[in-house]
């Protein structure tokens, strides 16, 4: 674990290398980047293994000091960190490999991999930090990576707008996080997590302070993880390349919010209010996004809203003291969501459209279909697939906490989840091709292989539940109870999930034609939330911008222009003194001399 710092180093080297040599490497950039990331993966596994046989490892160095204030940077390997490192690096590796085939032929191939490297560097560094200031630095860097990658196809207006929207919206959340950092420093006198947790344990921080800090940190998480109301950037972020969506908006960056809340969990445990808020927001977001997903036509947007919904589940778990459940779900979600996105990328590659109503009959493309369906089954929580196990844990934790309303909301959301997923499946895979002309050709080998491996991983990861709770508990002094829930719970949840599938089958069976309705329109537009934001906040900010622009152009610009003009005017006037006539010049010289003389005489000498 001493060398854990090289884990982020490899992707960083990839970033720099590809920036400098990208033009020359061209097609080989993908291999170079993948190679470096695979080294990172190896290192992550190694660190994971070491943590398993050892204790939490911390290492810090002093960065700079101002007066009496000492700011240090460092890294630590807790159980949670080690797990996150493995997840991030593994998924990043698969995305790298997949992208070598997906992005083939793109002009800015090497730049793409450079950005991927930057992002991976930032994400892996983020999960290893020891103090919240350093975390903020990498938090922002991750946001930058996301911005660059979402706006990768920058020739398109929509991509540019989406990138800006993502960055600005997460920034709004980041303000909350920043204020939290300031408060932490004010009350604790240091940025270190260790000190913070000690203070919380000692009870030396007043409960209102703890609650405020916890809520502000949660605001940051809302932005990054796309919870209501800062969720509208996620669907738009689908303008980026599909592998990017797999990496960032399924597995890693959006999980950063969940990770952050989990990381400062002692803080949340100390505040009932904060926990309740987290749980409520999570639950609301989950059902909210699930309803919207049922009316989307774009395959990627369905998956995007699904991500928002699943993140809501994770927040719900955290809010009901289900730490292990949340992390478990984060892990399984990372794998099956990445799988779904990658498979969706493959589908898009085959069908050349993203509108599910224009697809159909993709089932003939066996490999892609199989992997996609595996992902869908996982997400829907069908028994034996990974999603089932992690969702079980979440339901259990909600039930145990006694929030029965939230429990039923979660159940309904699970039904909606399987409904919209299988709506997608039934529209895309079985049935006839809508467009006779297109031939469906299976995707390139590299894409197939990565899909296969990720699919296998996503199935396997479902069975680590028990080990996970033991693993994560080594971080905490107090143990989490892993009680067995009521026997009927798995049954009920399976019933809900299957019900969703059946309803989808009824409505979207190959032979039936889909119908339009007004509620459909409302849901499709996301309850018109984007429009509302546009009319209010965006219009307000634009108004301020216009005012300041007017001030800048006319007041300040006018001032500058006036000064310039007056100088010119002065110069022109002064030029008249140059008459070219010798006698004038001589006369002026004489006048000057006389004046000096008179002054001399008057003052009785030089003054």
């Amino acid at each position, binding site marked *: 674990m001493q060398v854990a710092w090289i884990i982020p180093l490899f992707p960083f080297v990839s970033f720099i290398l590809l920036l400098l040599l990208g033009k020359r490497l061209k097609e080989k950039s993908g291999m170079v980047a993948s190679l470096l990331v695979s080294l990172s993966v190896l290192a992550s596994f190694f660190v994971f293994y070491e943590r398993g046989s050892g204790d939490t490892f911390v290492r810090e160095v002093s960065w700079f000091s101002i007066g009496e204030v000492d700011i240090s940077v460092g890294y630590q390997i807790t159980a949670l960190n080690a797990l996150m490192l493995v997840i991030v690096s593994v998924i990043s590796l698969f995305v790298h490999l997949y992208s070598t085939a997906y992005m083939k032929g793109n002009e800015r191939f090497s730049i793409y991999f450079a950005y991927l490297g930057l992002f991976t560097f930032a994400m892996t560094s983020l999960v290893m930090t020891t103090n919240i200031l350093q975390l903020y630095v990498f938090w922002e860097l991750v946001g930058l990576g996301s911005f660059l990658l979402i706006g990768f196809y920058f020739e398109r207006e929509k991509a540019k707008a989406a990138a800006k929207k993502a960055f600005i919206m997460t920034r709004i959340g980041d303000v909350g996080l920043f204020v939290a950092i300031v408060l932490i420093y004010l009350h604790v006198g240091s940025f270190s997590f260790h000190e913070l947790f000690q203070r919380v344990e000692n009870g030396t921080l007043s409960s209102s302070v703890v609650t405020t800090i916890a809520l502000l940190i949660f605001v940051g998480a809302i932005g990054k993880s796309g919870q209501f109301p800062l969720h509208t950037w996620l669907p738009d972020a689908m303008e980026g390349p599909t592998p990017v969506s797999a990496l960032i908006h399924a597995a890693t960056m959006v999980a950063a919010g969940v990770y952050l809340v989990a990381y400062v969990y002692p803080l949340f445990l100390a505040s009932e209010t904060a926990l309740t808020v987290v749980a409520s927001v999570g639950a609301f977001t989950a059902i909210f996004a699930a309803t919207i997903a049922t009316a989307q036509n774009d395959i990627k947007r369905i998956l995007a809203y699904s991500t928002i919904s699943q993140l809501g589940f994770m927040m719900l778990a955290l809010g009901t003291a289900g730490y292990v459940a949340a992390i478990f779900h984060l892990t399984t979600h990372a794998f099956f969501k990445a799988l779904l996105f990658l498979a969706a990328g493959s589908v898009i590659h085959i069908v050349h459209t993203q509108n599910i109503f224009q697809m159909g009959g993709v089932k003939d493309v066996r490999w892609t279909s199989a992997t996609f369906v595996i992902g869908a089954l996982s997400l829907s929580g069908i028994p034996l697939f990974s999603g089932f196990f992690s969702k079980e844990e979440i339901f259990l934790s909600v039930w145990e906490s006694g929030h029965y309303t939230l429990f039923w909301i979660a159940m309904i959301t699970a039904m909606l989840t399987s409904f919209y997923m299988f709506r997608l499946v039934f529209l895309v895979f079985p049935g006839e091709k809508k467009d006779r002309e297109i031939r469906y050709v299976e995707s390139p080998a590299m894409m197939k292989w990565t899909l296969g491996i990720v699919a296998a991983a996503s199935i396997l990861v479902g069975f680590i539940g028990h080990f996970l709770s033991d693993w994560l508990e080594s971080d905490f002094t107090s143990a989490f109870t892993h009680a067995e829930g009521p026997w009927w719970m798995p049954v009920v949840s399976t019933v809900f999930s299957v019900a969703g599938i059946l309803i989808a089958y009824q409505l979207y069976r190959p032979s039936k034609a889909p119908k339009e309705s007004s509620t459909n329109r409302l849901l499709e537009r996301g309850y018109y939330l984007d429009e509302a934001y546009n009319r209010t906040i965006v219009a307000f900010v634009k108004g301020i911008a216009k005012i300041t622009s007017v001030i800048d152009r006319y007041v300040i610009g006018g001032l500058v222009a006036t000064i310039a003009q007056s100088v010119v005017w002065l110069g022109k006037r002064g030029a008249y003194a140059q008459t070219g006539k010798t006698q004038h010049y001589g*006369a002026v010289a*004489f*006048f000057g*001399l*006389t004046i000096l*003389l*008179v002054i*001399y*005489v008057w003052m009785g000498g030089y003054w």
Partner: protein
Amino acid sequence: MNGEIIAFSILAFVAIIGALFMIQLRKVVHMVVALVFTFLSLAGLYVLLSAEFAAAVQVLIYSGAITIMMLFGIMLTRHGDEEKKGSRKKSVAIFLFLIAFAFSFYIGISQLDFGQQETTLHVDNTKEIGILLYSHYIIPFELTSVVLLVALVGAILLAKKEEEE
């Protein structure tokens, strides 16, 4: 009332009158003639100041050579009669400033007196000046000759007619 003062008064008077006429007269040649009077009376003043050599040189160079040069200049250039075209404002301003200038100098010099001393300047004036020129002031002397040479060549070059191709 000794003769010195009478001589001084007469010579000074002539000098100033000459200068004034120079300013006032219309025709250029008349102006030059008035100027000659001024030069000559200045030579007389030099004699009064025990500077006989300087007086001689003054007569030779100024009222001789330079006057002739000016006359040549006047002859070779055609001019209409002196038109008094200067602006009122300008002449008033110059006049005022001149008054101020003169006044400030007057304040400085009117009470200047270093006391009369017996001087031997008039004894062998030319010879003494010659000795000085060739001993103490030999370098300025030589340089002056260079300057004269340069002026000569320069004046010729400048005044030469352009050669027709």
